């Protein structure tokens, strides 16, 4: 059951969000001109997004914004969970465009504004399960990826969708030590990409995405481990062959192309049967397909998801 204190109160009514998101920087900014500059720059981002409620939302209690914005894996900005909240303000998310190419009838480069007009924005409250055994519940705002793909008209050769994140080593200084290759790349099979659960998200908690959560546009595939949901997308390419994916390139035995949430398939270094929901003391049992099995299990009928297609 989702408990809302009042219909009139908005998430941002307490502290202006840019100041909240950068409050540590804000607090130390006093005498530091640089810090103040950072806070100012951050203050130019983050605005309200109107969205309709979706029947695909879970009724579970969303994880607090504090945790969603200060416990991130965004290795371009550092490998500690709090690093992205400190460093991601450097990313300029406006102007922003996404190049869509490959096996499509209408390849094009689309501005973010145009992308956000493709379909009505929905609030989708999804469970989010990280491969590292923690989970959250996140009120995303976005629209189905299928709407964007239909607009560019995939050809019969389009069997997979390859995504690419923004990469700028000048602002992503920590990326040199992350131990994985950049730009970050991910991929989905065509039917996964066209699935109604698969979201292109532009916001969370009623506002545009904080940079550390993958602004301005990211993927959300809630039945897969979090690393499949690529952040800050700059390129989408429709291809015939299974595209390379970053963590698979780094350690193929640990991170497969599919990476569906699956308690039956251990990560080689830890069991995936349980997870810690952020904010909870006890562990929860992990559910196959992160609890979205009714909707997505049929995509994988006949496939060995433990040994072959993990």
């Amino acid at each position, binding site marked *: 059951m989702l408990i809302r204190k009042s219909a009139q109160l908005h998430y941002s009514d307490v502290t202006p969000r840019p100041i909240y998101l950068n409050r540590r920087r804000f607090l130390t900014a006093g005498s530091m001109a640089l810090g103040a500059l950072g806070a100012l720059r951050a203050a130019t981002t983050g605005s309200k997004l109107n969205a309709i409620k979706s029947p695909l939302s879970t009724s579970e209690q969303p994880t607090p914004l*504090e*945790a969603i914005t*200060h*416990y991130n894996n965004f*290795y371009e900005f550092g*490998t500690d*969970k*709090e690093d992205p909240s400190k460093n991601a303000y450097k990313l300029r998310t406006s102007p922003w465009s996404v190049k869509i190419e490959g096996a499509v009838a209408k390849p094009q480069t689309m501005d973010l504004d145009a992308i956000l007009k493709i379909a009505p924005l929905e609030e989708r409250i999804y469970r989010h399960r990280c491969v*590292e055994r*923690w989970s959250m519940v996140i009120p995303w705002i976005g629209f189905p990826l299928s709407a964007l793909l239909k607009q560019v008209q995939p050809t019969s050769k389009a069997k997979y969708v390859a995504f690419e994140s923004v990469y700028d080593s000048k602002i992503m200084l920590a990326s040199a*030590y*992350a*131990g*994985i290759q950049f730009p970050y790349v991910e991929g989905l099979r065509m039917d996964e990409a066209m699935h109604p659960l698969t979201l292109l998200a532009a916001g969370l908690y009623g506002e545009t995405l904080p940079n550390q959560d993958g602004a301005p546009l990211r993927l959300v595939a809630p039945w897969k481990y979090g690393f499949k949901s690529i952040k800050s997308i700059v390129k989408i390419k429709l291809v015939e062959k299974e595209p390379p994916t970053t963590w698979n390139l*780094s*350690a193929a035995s640990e991170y497969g192309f599919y990476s569906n949430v699956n308690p039956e398939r251990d990560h*080689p*270094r*830890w*069991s995936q049967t349980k997870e*810690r929901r*952020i*904010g909870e*003391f*006890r*562990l929860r049992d992990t559910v196959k397909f992160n609890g979205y099995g009714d909707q997505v299990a049929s995509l994988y009928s006949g496939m060995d998801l433990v040994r072959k297609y993990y």
Partner: protein
Amino acid sequence: MHKVLSSGWTKAFLFLLCLAPLLWLVWGYFHEQLGANPIEYITHKTGDWTLRFLLITLCVTPFRKLFNQPQLARFRRMLGLFAFFYGCLHLTTWVWLDKFFDVHEMWKDVVKRRFITVGMTGFVLMIPLAVTSTSGWVRRLGFVRWQRLHRLVYFSALAGVIHYYWLVKSDVRLPLLYGAILGLLLGYRLVTAKPFRVRHSGSSGPMQMLK
């Protein structure tokens, strides 16, 4: 310097300093300062401090010799026991907050996951060292045998470094740094080893080191 190092106050102060990481964890937990996943934070920090105290303990002998400060040896047992203490806390977080005392699950992890196998080995190797850390045990074993037994600490620290290296996903900078420090500390011992003179105790002989 000699006066400071031999003062009882210094040892008391160092004792409190060694407790600081634990006090921070306790205070931080109750004041919500440990981030979004406090249990993970506690697990990582107690592990960090176990390895750090092992390395600090291994620094004592080289520093004592290089800087000619025999009084440093007074702190070695306490530092080593703090390594064991943080190791116990680290193990406890795993047994309690990760496995919730499920013995079957724990055993499965120990035999199946090499980073847990090696971490557990490092911990188990510390147990006889903690038990025999008293002056009474040195007498009972005789210094030579006692010292030989306590060389297990090298393997314990090595296991700690490997445990950490196998645990991280891709950013191996810190495990490599700890590994490099351990390499220096063990390398120093290798270079300065005098196999035929060890048993002739000089001014920094065994009983003095234990005071």
